[in-house]
């Protein structure tokens, strides 16, 4: 332990996607020293895969847009289970966060008058997504990465050292958060390259680790999405909420098998693409739920007119929120009206000229051409639902992003509350920026308030963390971690997937008990230097804990809402809307409890028509004095 590499920082940010980088920028702007610790190379995080854009009510394309409309759309999309305070902050601050990116050098697509262009997307009343073709996430991450570099250049001019204030630890994985007397003291990690350990002593840690997609078999997520932040937080004593809400994106590739799950951007539909079944029918018109009947076109003719005349027509139902579209596709396939490879058709070739498709959707054209031999300017795509996003996440204070554990902050996909039971497309990138900044600020303020009394890391904590991380090397004749992972993904896909029932989830929980022993008995071949088998054995513990939180929460919530659909409880219930389901660790597993949501502030409630509120809220929650 004497030769353990040690670093001391004010703030350690875990994760280098949009939220992590924005948090790091903010903490540094507040004068703090910052470590950015990420599992991949710098600039490769999952944010690069975001395609559609950043939702922000700038009103560049339709001047009627404003934060109130964005707030309403977000609450509707999340079926009113959102943390209303987070949805409010998000809608109000997103435009500033986007404009700020331009000062860092971002180059968004433009409107004819030279402003940032905005595109239509599911659930957004007006064109709202700032974008760059269909590679908006790449633009976001590269811009933030380059802003970090510019701050490092400033630090170099001042101190002669690029890394005097912000240091990046790429390909480093955190295995444990260190806690002393109920407060964050640091984090323990290993270098993927060498397998050597590294200790970060820091009073504040920002989790920005993204999602949990790799717990499911069909997913749009990369290997990184193993629920690290969710598991680290729960093990350290913080809580997660609403883990049952998983977004299955309606359009993932279904063929070839090796790319099954890879995302097909919602922009395809935003720009005019339509969904049809094997009978050639535009089936989404059959799936408009009552709560959305007023806002969506009832005929293809009206839907088509909306693209050019949104003032006098309603939007086509292909642009319903993602949960609705995913369930509809699932139903069509189950009813035997699917494509040869078990999806439905998504067609833009008959809707837009080839050169426009290539211009607006260049990476989709490229992706289908290269991976599936399909030319989307000439033929339809085959698509089906894929695990895309977890709405649930670490429970945070809406304003500071501090978790229930002092010194631990969370932002982006790893945090919970903002999106309620279903996230709107485009609200993720804006979430990263708004709450990434707030988490960096919250961490800086927390560190200032601590003064000189920083919690310390003890030798015992370090020794424990090391023993845990190396355990898999000492298992004799154990199981291959790749096999365990594949089985876990299959279990979650089959039993806690897009449509759920009590008996299946009970079976999932039984099987997860068995996985606990299998994960303990995972064994590793080879040494510690860049050994993916070892890395997976460690990640499996996180995926297993997260899987249990998802299954327990899903079993508990006896209703269907957003990204949680129960065959045995198909209806959305106003009583359940008042409850979050909170997960924490207990023994080697997860315990859950119910926790009431705080009532929405009166002035926010007044932004809605009372007849709409009645669809979601109990009688007692409706605004006082309204009886219409």
């Amino acid at each position, binding site marked *: 332990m004497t030769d353990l590499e040690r670093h001391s920082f004010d703030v350690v940010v875990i994760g280098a996607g949009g939220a992590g980088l924005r948090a790091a920028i903010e903490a540094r702007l507040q004068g703090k020293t910052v470590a950015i610790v990420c599992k*991949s*190379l710098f*600039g*490769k*995080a*999952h944010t*690069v*895969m975001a395609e559609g854009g950043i939702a922000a009510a700038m009103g560049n394309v339709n001047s009627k847009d404003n934060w109130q409309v964005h707030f309403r759309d977000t609450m509707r999309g999340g079926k009113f289970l959102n943390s209303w305070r987070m949805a409010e902050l998000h809608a109000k601050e997103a*435009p500033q966060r986007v*404009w700020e990116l*331009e*000062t*860092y*050098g971002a*180059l968004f*697509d*433009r409107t004819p*008058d*030279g*402003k*940032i*262009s905005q595109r239509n997307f599911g659930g957004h009343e007006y064109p709202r997504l700032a974008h*760059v*073709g269909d*590679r908006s996430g*790449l633009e976001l991450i590269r811009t933030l990465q*380059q*802003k970090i*570099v*510019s701050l490092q*250049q400033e630090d*170099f001019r001042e101190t*002669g*050292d690029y890394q005097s204030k912000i240091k990046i630890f790429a390909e480093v994985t955190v295995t444990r958060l260190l806690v002393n007397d109920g407060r964050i003291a640091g984090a323990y990690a290993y270098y993927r*390259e060498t397998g050597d350990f590294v200790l970060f002593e820091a009073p504040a840690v920002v989790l920005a680790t993204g999602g949990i997609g790799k717990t499911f078999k069909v997913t749009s997520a*990369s290997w990184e999405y193993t629920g690290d932040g969710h598991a680290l937080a729960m093990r350290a004593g913080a809580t997660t909420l609403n883990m049952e809400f998983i977004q299955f994106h309606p359009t993932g590739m279904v063929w*070839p*098998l*090796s*790319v099954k799950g*890879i*995302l097909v951007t919602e922009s395809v539909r935003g720009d005019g693409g339509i969904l049809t079944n094997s009978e050639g029918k535009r089936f989404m018109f059959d799936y408009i739920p009552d709560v959305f009947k007023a806002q969506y076109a009832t005929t293809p003719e009206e839907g088509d007119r909306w693209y050019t005349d949104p003032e006098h027509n309603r939007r086509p139902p292909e642009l319903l929120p993602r949960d609705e579209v995913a369930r509809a596709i699932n139903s069509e396939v189950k009813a035997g009206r699917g494509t040869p490879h078990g999806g439905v058709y998504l067609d833009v070739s008959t809707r837009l000229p080839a050169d426009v498709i290539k211009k607006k959707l260049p*990476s989709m054209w*490229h992706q289908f051409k*290269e*991976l*599936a031999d399909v030319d989307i300017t000439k033929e339809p795509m085959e698509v089906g639902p894929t695990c895309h996003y977890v709405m649930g996440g670490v429970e945070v204070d809406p304003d500071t992003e501090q978790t229930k554990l002092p010194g631990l902050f969370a932002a982006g996909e790893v945090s919970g509350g903002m999106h309620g039971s279903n996230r709107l497309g485009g609200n993720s990138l804006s979430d990263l920026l708004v709450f990434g900044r707030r988490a960096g600020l919250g961490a800086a303020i927390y560190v200032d308030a601590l003064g000189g009394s920083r919690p310390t890391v003890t030798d015992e904590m370090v020794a424990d963390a090391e023993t845990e991380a190396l355990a898999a090397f000492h298992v004799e004749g154990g199981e*291959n*971690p*790749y096999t365990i992972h*594949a089985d876990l993904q299959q279990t979650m896909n089959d039993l806690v997937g897009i449509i759920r029932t009590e008996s299946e989830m009970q079976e999932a929980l039984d099987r997860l008990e068995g996985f606990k022993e299998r994960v303990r008995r995972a064994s*590793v*071949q080879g*040494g510690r*230097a*860049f*050994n*993916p*088998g*070892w890395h997976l054995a460690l990640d499996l513990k996180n995926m297993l804990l997260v899987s249990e939180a998802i299954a327990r929460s899903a079993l508990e919530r006896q209703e269907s809402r957003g990204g949680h659909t129960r065959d045995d409880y198909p209806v959305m219930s106003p009583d359940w809307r008042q409850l979050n389901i909170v997960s924490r660790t207990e023994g080697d597993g997860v315990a859950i409890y119910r926790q009431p949501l705080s009532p929405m502030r009166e002035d926010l409630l007044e932004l809605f028509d009372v007849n709409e509120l009645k669809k979601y809220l109990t009688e007692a929650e409706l605004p006082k004095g309204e009886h219409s």
Partner: protein
Amino acid sequence: MTYKAKFRVWRGDDDSGDLVSYEVDVNEGEVVLDIVHRLQATQAPDLAVRWNCKAGKCGSCSAEVNGRPRLMCMTRMNTFTEDEVITITPMRTFPVIRDLVTDVSYNYTKARMVPAFAPPADLEPGDYRMAQVDVERSQEFRKCIECFMCNNVCHAVRDHEENKTTFSGPRFLMRIAELDMHPLDTVDRRKVAVDDHGLGYCNITKCCTEVCPEHIHITDNALIPLKERVADKRYDPIFSIASLFSRSKDKRSPAPETPKG
């Protein structure tokens, strides 16, 4: 249509290593990265490889397949015959860490030497106005996914380790061109391009353009225009004479920075 393919994969580190032969199942529609993953799951669990998105968007899985720089996730198996031996080696220009994983820190060092975007000081956030036609030139370069295959293939460093200190490779010369063409950037980057990033080393053989998985016209649209701008400044006699009388005739030019250590 499953068949067994013959693979040779580099196993080892920067000091020693060897091509190891494997026979692996291949299914319809698969790409080289699928086969590498199957190797990990069934025969070589400690085989080191970088990857993330598996959709050609992150630029992590760069390697050399039968000697050609490729993203493994975008290299379809049906581009090879079933009896062809497929050889996968790490990118040659960068030191090997283990197996297919290389030390690409050279690229991050060079990135840090490119002077940052500098907008007009009095331009407020939200007031930026740019025409689509003007942003498109730089947007092409911002499609770059930083797979570093252009820097890997460029012979100015691939065959000349000693040039790494003075030459930043196509990736970062293109980054300079991108900023130079940004409608609102205020910095003159021509001197930096030559003095700090070795623009003169590029003799436009277009190897970088050929390997770019994003099909960016690196040479034609970034490097040649940048060379032309530099030449304008250096060899225009009127500009030279004028510059004798005015020290701030052109956009301001920052003092070049040298990296520490």
